[in-house]
């Protein structure tokens, strides 16, 4: 049901949950528990499957863990471990909230809402282009990986795997730069002069 809330309400709900998750001191166990429950409840309301959240958390935890583990290693005693726990809990809760937001809010609606809140144009342009071309680049990487696999007749050594992965990334970077060039050309061709212009889509056209 969260899907049909007004866009501003969804955005502010997410900001409020993130603020709550990052401001409550970790030592106040019950309070943290309440915030976690609220976030969990929001996911339930939006009918986001728990397995979906868990799978994404699995990708998020390793880098978060690496970041957090540096603290108990550098700070002696209990203080280090407390900070470790703080980072893990806050990171997890904030990430879950962000997941909730992208699930209840289509990306163009999120951009439109941020624009109404007068977020700078450059930032919005970056977000919008990133969202658009992340998928295109991902497809390109996928095609290159498939092409490599098609001519890989035996299991490569670890060294060879890493080497070809590095080549692949290098190629992808060059392709991305070329594409950026062509996109710039396409923008110029339709009269772009460096300023973003934007109008709201007519309401009745929305599904």
């Amino acid at each position: 049901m969260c899907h049909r809330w007004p866009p501003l309400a969804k955005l502010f709900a997410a900001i409020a949950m993130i603020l709550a998750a990052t401001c409550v001191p970790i030592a106040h166990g019950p309070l943290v528990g309440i915030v976690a429950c609220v976030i969990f409840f929001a996911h339930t309301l939006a009918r986001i499957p728990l397995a979906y959240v868990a799978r994404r958390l699995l990708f998020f935890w390793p880098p978060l863990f690496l970041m957090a583990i540096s603290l108990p290693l550098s700070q002696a005693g209990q203080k280090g471990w407390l900070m470790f726990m703080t980072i893990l809990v806050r990171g997890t809760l904030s990430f879950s909230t962000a997941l909730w937001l992208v699930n209840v809010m289509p990306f163009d609606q999120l951009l439109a809402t941020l624009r109404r809140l007068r977020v700078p144009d450059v930032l919005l342009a970056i977000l919008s282009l990133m969202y658009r071309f992340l998928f295109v680049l991902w497809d390109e990487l996928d095609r290159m990986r498939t092409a490599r696999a098609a001519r890989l007749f035996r299991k490569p050594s670890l060294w060879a795997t890493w080497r070809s992965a590095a080549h692949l990334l290098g190629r992808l970077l060059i392709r991305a730069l070329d594409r950026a060039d062509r996109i710039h050309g396409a923008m110029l061709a339709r009269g772009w002069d460096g300023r973003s212009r934007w109008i709201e889509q007519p309401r009745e056209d929305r599904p």
Partner: protein
Amino acid sequence: MTESTVTSESSAVRVERLSFRYPGGPDVLTDISFTIAPGEIIGLVGPSGAGKSTLLQHLNGLLPSQLPNFVGHVSNVPHVVIDNLPVARQTIAEVRRRVGFLFQDPDDQLFCPTVFEDVAFGPLNLGLSDDEARQRVRDSLASVGLAGYEPRSTLRLSLGERKRVCLAGVFACQPSVLALDEPFSSLDPRARRTLIGILKRFPGSQIIATHDLDVVVDLCHRVLLLDAGQLRAAGPTADILSNAALMERHGLEVPWRLRGEHTNG
């Protein structure tokens, strides 16, 4: 030849002695001259790497390093003239308004999250009011047969649909000349048919770079044959494309529809 019968006053596009090379590279275009009459559809054919895309980009001033700074300066004679307007730094905005450019890969051209925003991009840059821009979006989407596609995400469209949205974005600027770079590549027959129909209804001039010679027979009044950066032949479509020796020489083939006696136009 047809060129001489078209006076410079009535030309939609005039290219005069255009040569071009990328910095540090070999010549891509050498001494190219031709004109396009208003309403005329030109097929630009030639093997890959002949310089077709580069030539098209010149029509839209998309190679900024080569733009002359001041028109009329002795060393900066304008090489490309659109509707009597020489392509130069000061005229570039107006030139781009008049020439609509369709890129080969629609993913390069669809850079907004939704169809509506993408088609509205050109009109807004032209400085139209919000209402006018919305009207243009509606009209141009309808003209490519995609009415009601406004809220769709640009990520979830088929290739044919993406090409048509790109074309709607171009139409929304109401250009008088279309420059199309391989518009038919990788389209399935139905999408190809649809696109041909749309282009046939467009009232202005068109220059179409393509390998699809059957479409050229169907659509184009005249053909320019480009090879290794030089204009090797120009003339009525049937004359050029049915010349087996000429086609063979430049790595092309006489299209099926012009082989033998039976031609149905």
